[in-house]
């Protein structure tokens, strides 16, 4: 379970995130929806210990991130904005390296990498250098890397960016499978259709603060709009570009 309690963060004079609170529960996919620059990435970075909140708390399975960053990192798998793989390592080595960084012995990390290669259907990337991977292969490898220590919680920052329809679909199948296994999944997106399709819960964020949350149906009902797109525009309170 991932909890944000009144998280705030400023960079210089710019307040990026203001008192953001929400809960992403186990066995559910929670979507953080908002236009570009709304504060999604900053919020996720605070949740996964990369940034320190100015105020408020982030909790992973009850551990306060600021107090126990190492414990929190063990419980969370992160797929960051850019999936950055090491171009001269093979897919398998990329995955296993992070296993080792998470404290697995080398042999154990390689075994776990093989497991994930099978699970994510990555056989064609396993022995190849990451240099020539397609966008979809990069994403899957980065996802495997995030899962290498079998975390209970998974945070994905805009995972569908730049993916083709087929890759988005296979990602959806995968996330569904992880959700059904009882994991807590939190991901951000600025594309509403995606959120509507993938998520059980939606947290709408605009101008650094939470403007609405609930299931897609609830959000539609609350805004009085039928289509989710109209509901979204109404909720963020402007005709602001959705990117």
């Amino acid at each position, binding site marked *: 379970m991932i909890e944000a309690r009144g998280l705030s963060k400023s960079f210089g004079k710019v307040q990026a995130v203001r008192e953001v609170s929400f809960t992403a529960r186990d066995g559910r996919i929670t979507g953080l929806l908002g236009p570009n620059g709304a504060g999604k990435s900053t919020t996720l970075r605070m949740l996964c210990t990369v940034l320190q909140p100015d105020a408020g708390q982030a909790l992973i399975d009850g551990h306060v991130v600021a107090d126990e960053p190492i414990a929190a990192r063990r419980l969370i798998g992160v797929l960051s904005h850019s999936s950055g793989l090491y171009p001269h390592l093979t897919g398998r080595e990329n995955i296993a390296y992070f296993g080792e*960084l998470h404290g697995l012995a080398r042999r154990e990390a390689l075994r776990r990498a093989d497991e994930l290669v099978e699970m994510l259907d990555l056989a064609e990337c396993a022995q190849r250098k990451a240099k020539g991977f397609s966008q979809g292969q990069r994403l899957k490898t980065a996802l495997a890397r995030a899962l290498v220590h079998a975390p209970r919680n998974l945070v994905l920052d805009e995972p569908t960016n730049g993916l083709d329809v087929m890759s988005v679909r296979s990602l959806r199948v995968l996330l569904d499978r992880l959700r059904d296994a009882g994991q807590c999944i939190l991901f951000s997106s600025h594309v509403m259709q995606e959120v509507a399709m993938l998520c059980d819960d939606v947290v709408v964020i605009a101008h650094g603060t939470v403007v609405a949350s609930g299931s897609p149906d609830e959000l539609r009902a609350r805004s009085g709009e039928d289509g989710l797109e109209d509901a979204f525009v109404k909720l963020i309170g402007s005709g602001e570009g959705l990117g």
Partner: protein
Amino acid sequence: MRGILTVFRKEFLENLRDRRTIFSALLFGPLFGPLFFVLMINIMQQQAETRDEQQVEVAVSGGAYAPNLLALFAERGITVKPVTLDEAGARRAIAAGDQRTVVVVPQEFPSRLAAGQPADISLYFDRSSEMGSSATNRVRDAVDDYGRHIAQSRLLLRGVDPTLLRPVVVKGIDVSTPKARAVLALGTLTFFVILAMLTGGLYLAIDSTAGERERGSLEALLTTPLPRSYLIYGKILATTAYMLLSLTVTLVALSIALQFTRLEDWGMSVDLSPRSVLAMVLLTAPLSLAGAGLMTIVASFTRSFREAQTYLSIVLMVPTLPLALVGLLDLKPTVAAMATPSLSQHFLMTRVLRGEWPQGWEILLSAGVSLALGLLLAWIAGRLYEREQILG
């Protein structure tokens, strides 16, 4: 601790597969220096030999007016080529490259000489031509001696001791041993060695900081439970390892390359036996940690690979460029010098090249200060990575 080793092993192996790293660490840096050196020494030697063996030729106009001068030229192995040139003609001949040196003896020369008046002899030459200047010097020496002989004979005729004219006699005595002379010639050698060593870690230092950020893999790294400072320690260690590799390859290449020069013909010998190569590697190694730490810190502040490359190529000059000058100035190794990283390694290496062994305190001071600086820089780099601004 195991985390540091994990990072170290990954960085080391990944970069072993990167052609760019291999090129700069193990090929370009280590081979460029020695090659340059052998070329330079061979050219210097060739020049010196041609200078000495060369038949110096001088064009003389109006030689008939000074037959004793022509005899002196012949005695000194200077070939006389009789020409007929006036002043303008002599200038043209030098400018066109037809002659290196032209001596013009004017028609009135014998009569002035006979009258005991100062008699002019003009010497035309081109000072900007290196090959010409040594030939010209020999001609000028001969003409000077010719004048001196005349003066001496005039004094003797008048019953005066000619030595009165030379109250001070300068005797130049070169006391440098052949080895020391070689070290002077090889003065810039340590510059190449240390430059090659630092260059060996250049790509790693960039790749593991600015590269990691540009690639987008840094954020993922920061979400692993490994303390951030350990990450950077592992990276610095890998950078250090590449520097040591580079250092070893450079010195080995140098000891092989110098076999293709004929320093012995010059009465020079440089000790680059396997034993002294090993000693030089060990004496210089402590500097690598400081180099790796410095480069990592500077690269951490840059936003991209390209930017890092620009800054680091400047940073590289800081510990190396002074060595190129120190080697030529032949400074003495004081305590302060031995406590200065890079400078102290220069002196230690120079000692070994001379076939001497550095003293114990020198080795300890040099290694101690360099290692301490390296540890300090590594610690600073670690602290830098604890800050969240490091994400850029």
